C-alpha cells in the first residue's frame, strides 16, 4: 500500500470525525444537519477511495441527500435552536 494513499485516508477519516464532532456540538440544529451532510459526503468519498463505489453511491444518495432533507424537514416542523 502506498504511503500517500494511507495519508489521504487518514486525513479523510480525521475530517469525518471532526465533522461528526461539529454536528454534535453546534447549538443551531440546522447547522448541525449541514455538518451531518458534510460528514456523510466525506464518508461517501472515503468509501469511494476504499474501492466501494456501490456503497459510495448509496451513501451519497441516501446519507448526504435524503437524510439531510428529512432532518431539515423535521427541524422545520419543530424548532431550530437547541434550548439550554
Amino acid at each position, binding site marked *: 500500500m502506498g504511503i500517500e494513499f494511507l495519508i489521504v485516508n487518514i486525513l479523510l477519516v480525521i475530517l469525518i470525525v471532526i465533522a461528526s464532532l461539529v454536528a454534535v456540538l453546534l447549538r443551531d440544529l440546522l447547522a448541525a444537519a449541514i455538518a451531518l451532510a458534510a460528514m456523510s459526503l466525506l*464518508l461517501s468519498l472515503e*468509501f469511494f477511495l*476504499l474501492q466501494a463505489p456501490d456503497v459510495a453511491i448509496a451513501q451519497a444518495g441516501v446519507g448526504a441527500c435524503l437524510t439531510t432533507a428529512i432532518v431539515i424537514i423535521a427541524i422545520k416542523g419543530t424548532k431550530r435552536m437547541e434550548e439550554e
Partner: protein
Amino acid sequence: MIEYIPFIAVVAMIIIGLYTVVFRRNLIKIVIGISIIESGVNLFLIILGYRDGGVAPIFTSLPPGTSFPEGMVLPVPQALTLTSIVIGVAVLALMLSLVMHIYRKYGTLDVQKIRRLKE
C-alpha cells in the same frame, strides 16, 4: 500503529454518537447521534473489507493486469453496509416523524421534560 488509525476513528465515531445520545438533551440531537453511530459501524465494515491495492469487485472493464481474487477488495462487507445504510434511513425517518409528533404534544424537544412515563 498508523495502520490502525481508521479503526480508532470508528471507535471515536461510535463514542461521539453514544455521548450525544446520553448527554445531549435535544431530541433531534439524539437522532443525529444515532445516525453517527450507524455511520461509524458502516465505516467499520468497509474498512474490514479493504485489501491493499485492491480494486472494486466489478469485472466490467477491469484495469488490465489485475489478478483476482487477490487484487480485489472483499464484496461481502460492502453488501452488508448497503443493507445497513437503508436500515439507517428507515430508522431515521421513523424517529424524526415521532419527534415531530412529540413536539406537537409536549411543546418541547428537551428530553428532560419528555418524561410523563416514569417510575
